[in-house]
């Protein structure tokens, strides 16, 4: 959101390609939280997600000279997504291992939830959402996470997964459709909205 991250990235990449580790550290700082959270939502385990993020940065550093003039962001996400797929293959099954009930160093900018009962309910909602994501086919899961967890634009996602925009659009929509079906099985936690009238887009 700050000043032109792409231009900043390009300058840092240029310096890092000359062997400037400090410049690369800046890139790591910039991308560590989004990359880690992408991996976490993909594979479900904090340790594995941290390993994936670490390995992604290592590979990026080592292969930085192959990046040429391309943007760093989709490239680093692509490396990490590929590592997630490697992880799935190693596990021989495409299922995340959610670390339910474990405390985490959680960061949130959301509103305070003062009431323990509400907090428990929020925790339950999060668990169901995580389960719904974990139930997705990995291609759909990737598209959904890149969009709704990481906030990447469709074009960026297309670059990450090396697919046409139409595929991105379709995967995101299908993933959301599947998740929605799952959430609607818990009407007490995810009330069905009456209409979109009042929250409607730009009216």
């Amino acid at each position, binding site marked *: 959101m*700050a000043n032109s991250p792409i231009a900043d990235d390009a300058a840092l990449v240029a310096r890092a390609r000359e062997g400037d580790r400090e410049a690369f550290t800046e890139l790591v700082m910039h991308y560590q939280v989004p990359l880690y959270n992408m991996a976490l939502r993909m594979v479900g385990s904090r340790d594995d997600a941290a390993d994936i*993020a670490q390995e992604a940065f*290592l590979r990026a550093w080592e292969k930085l000279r192959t990046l040429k003039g391309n943007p760093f962001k989709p490239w680093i996400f692509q490396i990490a997504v590929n590592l997630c797929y490697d992880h799935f293959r190693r596990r021989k099954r495409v299922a995340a291992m959610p670390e339910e009930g474990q*405390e985490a*160093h959680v960061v949130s900018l959301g509103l305070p939830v003062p009431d323990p009962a509400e907090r428990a309910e929020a925790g339950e909602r999060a668990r169901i959402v995580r389960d719904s994501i974990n139930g997705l086919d990995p291609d759909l899961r990737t598209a959904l996470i890149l969009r709704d967890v990481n906030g990447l634009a469709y074009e960026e996602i297309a670059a990450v997964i090396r697919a046409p925009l139409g595929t991105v659009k379709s995967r995101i929509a299908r993933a959301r459709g599947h998740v929605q079906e799952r959430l609607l099985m818990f009407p007490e936690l*995810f009330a069905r909205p009456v209409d979109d009238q009042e929250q409607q887009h730009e009216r």
Partner: protein
Amino acid sequence: MNAEPELEDLSAYLDQELTGTARQQLEAHLQTCETCRRRLAALRQTVSAVQALPTEAPPRVFTIPPQRQQRTGAPGWAWAGGALAAACLLVVVTTIGLANLPHGGGMATTNAPASRYQGGADRGPTMTVTDPQDLSKQLTISSGSTAFSADQGTTTGSQAAAPLAASKNQPLQVGLILQGVPGDGVPANLTDAHVRLTLLRDGYEVALANPDTFSAARENGAVRITATFRVGSPPLPSPAAGNYVLRVTWQVPDGSGVSLVAQVPVTVAN
């Protein structure tokens, strides 16, 4: 013209990725079709539910060990190409600063596994770096005990408190250990200790120069410093809440010109 829109179009519309005629047609359709308004609302709710998943701070600091070199163009070759002695020296110094070497000098992904975050909130993440040229020089940073109850303002999505979060009414505690400081003096402030503390995020770097409290003591040849900062006071980028890296740079006061750099993740909550 108003055929029932596909799920894809509704979804892309929510993302502002539907443009031109397609967007206009969809909007026109929504004006007249309650069913599709409901579909859109349900989809919007689903997206919100996914977006509401809490962002988690990484359990460790990700680093590049000095022995890992860039490929293609062969690292050794670029340097051996000669003539770049000064550049080499620069790289070495940078490496010392940023290698984040753990004690043994192996893989440097120190130092705070997830478990450290769990349970009590007495310890924050810790990182120690050693000057590879002089192993007696060591710098440790920890973000100290900033037990921060969820009741005080972080939403966690789970029942976990966010132990490392600092909020405006909860000062950020920083603990430093400077090992191998010559003499027996005790620094009176951060500058005196040749230490610079910064908070980094998204390319912003905010200096933490004026602690609310500062204490220093000598212990077994090391200088131990504890400082607290009110996070509200430095001009953090807006919104202030979020993930930062707390970085300490210590210019080792032995005339070597070496600086050690260590860093830990820190969360600022609303």
